[in-house]
């Protein structure tokens, strides 16, 4: 069994380029699609109302308050052009008490901007309605602010309040999403080595050797787990220590989640391997199915964006949604061990079932 594992490793060591490309892809993908949200993104705001100057001034200061994004008043024509030509993802058109997003894409950053702007507008609307019944406008405003910042009851920490949402870190979520996606690919390709080696007769040689069937499967599967885990670990360590992403304090919990995810994903890949006859079919099937899964699991979007029950159900059949769920809880809400047991159990469950069926299918395909 160990020699089989080592042979797989030797192959990848001889040809590490593919691994390096995969690792670079998860890092590059994250940076590309988040536009590096770690550094504040600049977003154009403008108004086309009569009293545009006043509106712009008012919202500019409110929007910039407590946000890592920078909202800058821009000429309306210029802002629109920038969006149209793809130089910026989104611009905000301000009305007296409302806003419109100017955008041509539905990148996650747009959602992120929308969340923030909406929160600011809703809060302001609340204050406005309170103000209408009061005389001391400034006094009231300060009072509300103080109350919001220092609530009498410490409830808001766990409830989804406006404050919390605006600090929600889409960049970190996307980083994990891409890392998991890329790991799904690499895991799939490594599991598919079983099929490849079967076609070339290597598998038969192993069967004729004293290595047991269980030992053979264990070696291939353990290797796929190993390589998938190493890939994710590398990416996450690079993000944490080189690019200084905030991934929370609990690296230990994260590694456990990733380990469970790896196992679960290897099982899914085994199941898909069992469904095809030739490695080429796998190469056609797997890369066309896999990118869809995180999409319908909603891991690229704000949690709760996908509400269609069919899609969420399909998403829940795959480990990536559960892994993401647990990761977000750990990274952003300081979840502890007991808070993530449910997604962990679900991943094990998926893993065991898929592995059982998968190995059976792989066996049946060839004898």
């Amino acid at each position: 069994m160990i020699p089989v594992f080592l042979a797989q490793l030797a192959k990848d060591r001889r040809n590490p380029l593919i691994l390096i490309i995969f690792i670079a892809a998860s890092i590059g993908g994250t940076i590309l699609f988040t536009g590096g949200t770690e550094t504040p993104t600049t977003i154009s705001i403008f108004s086309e109302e009569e009293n545009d100057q006043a509106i712009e001034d008012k919202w500019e200061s409110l929007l910039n308050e407590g946000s890592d994004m920078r909202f800058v008043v821009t000429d309306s024509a210029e802002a629109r052009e920038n969006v149209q030509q793809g130089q910026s993802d989104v611009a905000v058109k301000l009305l007296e008490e409302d806003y419109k997003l100017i955008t041509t894409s539905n990148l996650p950053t747009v959602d992120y901007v929308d969340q923030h702007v909406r929160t600011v507008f809703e809060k302001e609307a609340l204050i406005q309605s309170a103000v209408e019944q009061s005389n001391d406008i400034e006094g009231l405003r300060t009072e509300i602010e103080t109350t919001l910042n220092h609530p009498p009851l410490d409830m808001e920490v766990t409830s989804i309040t406006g404050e919390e949402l605006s600090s929600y870190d889409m960049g970190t979520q996307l980083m994990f999403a891409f890392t998991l996606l890329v790991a799904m690919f690499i895991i799939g390709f490594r599991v598919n080595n079983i099929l490849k080696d079967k076609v070339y007769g290597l598998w038969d040689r192993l069967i004729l050797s004293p290595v047991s069937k269980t030992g053979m499967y264990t070696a291939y599967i353990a290797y796929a787990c190993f390589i998938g885990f190493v890939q994710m670990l590398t990416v996450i360590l690079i993000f944490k220590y080189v690019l200084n992403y905030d991934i929370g304090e609990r690296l230990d919990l994260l590694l456990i989640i990733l380990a469970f995810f790896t196992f679960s994903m290897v099982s899914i890949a085994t199941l898909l391997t069992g469904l095809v006859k030739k490695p080429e079919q796998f190469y056609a099937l797997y890369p066309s199915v896999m990118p869809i899964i995180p999409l319908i699991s909603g891991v690229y979007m704000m949690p709760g964006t996908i509400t269609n029950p069919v899609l969420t159900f399909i998403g829940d059949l795959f480990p990536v949604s559960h892994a993401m769920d647990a990761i977000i809880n750990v990274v952003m809400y300081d979840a502890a061990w007991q808070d993530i047991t449910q997604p962990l159990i679900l991943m094990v469950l998926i893993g065991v079932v898929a592995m059982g069926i998968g190995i059976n299918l792989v066996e049946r395909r060839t004898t």
Partner: protein
Amino acid sequence: MIETIQLSKRFKEKTVVEGVDLYLDKGESVGLLGPNGAGKSTTISIISSLLKPTTGDVKLDGESVIKNPGDIRKVLGVVPQEIALYQELTAYENLKFFGRIYRVPKSQLESRIQTTLELVGLKDRQKDLIKTFSGGMKRRINIASALLHHPKILILDEPTVGIDPQSRNYILEMIRKLNEQEGTTVLYTSHYMEEVEQLCDRVYIMDHGKVIASGSQSELLSILSNEDTMKVQLNQMSNELVKAILEIDVVRHVEETGDSIKIIAKKSSNIISNLVKLADQQNIKIMNFQMENPSLEDVFLHLTGRTLRD
């Protein structure tokens, strides 16, 4: 040593091997000859316990090995028809890998690898990746991988397919050495009759899943003892002449090869005079006439009416 009893294998509706009885005695070199799709590889897979027969049995020293394949696997070295190697690894790494999974003791592994590399003549290329090897060299490492654990029985499935004559001779010579000097029992599959003639004490000829003839070479050739094979060289080829010759009632087979024709006919007949007469009628000159020793190829032709590589 090994014996199969009425082996049959059916895939879905298709019967691929049917009622095959064969045996291998210790130290023998036995050939399994047959055209593409005859069922050779399937038979070998069943013998080496990779496939279960639909019906029939395989015995090693009298014990059935179908249910308990461990015993036969221990004494077997199997060279598959495909190049079953890690292309991304070197020859040395491949051999080390197979040595380890076949449990060659650590202390002997290194020397076994070197001896085997020497045997296949690739010691100086051991550090090179398999994918940089020529077809013939890959074949040789493919064989070497099955030798590391000193198998008592070596089963080779068309180990010379698609390689140059030089590599082919090298491989045949190597197998002969293993058989004669080390006493390895050999089952050699091929659709080249020359190889089997050169290498094997006994031959089984398979076609459409059945063994259609078996025995030593002389036994097989005696099937043809009442036939003559002759080669006739003509100054020009004529389809009419070929047709006319086929109509002679003692003629079994006529085959055109370049400017000559090969004729198989019943012995002791007056075919030659007939031939001369027919050629005369069409104004064709016979340039050369030659009686040929029959080969296993001719035996196959006799039995099936087809050539081995049709």
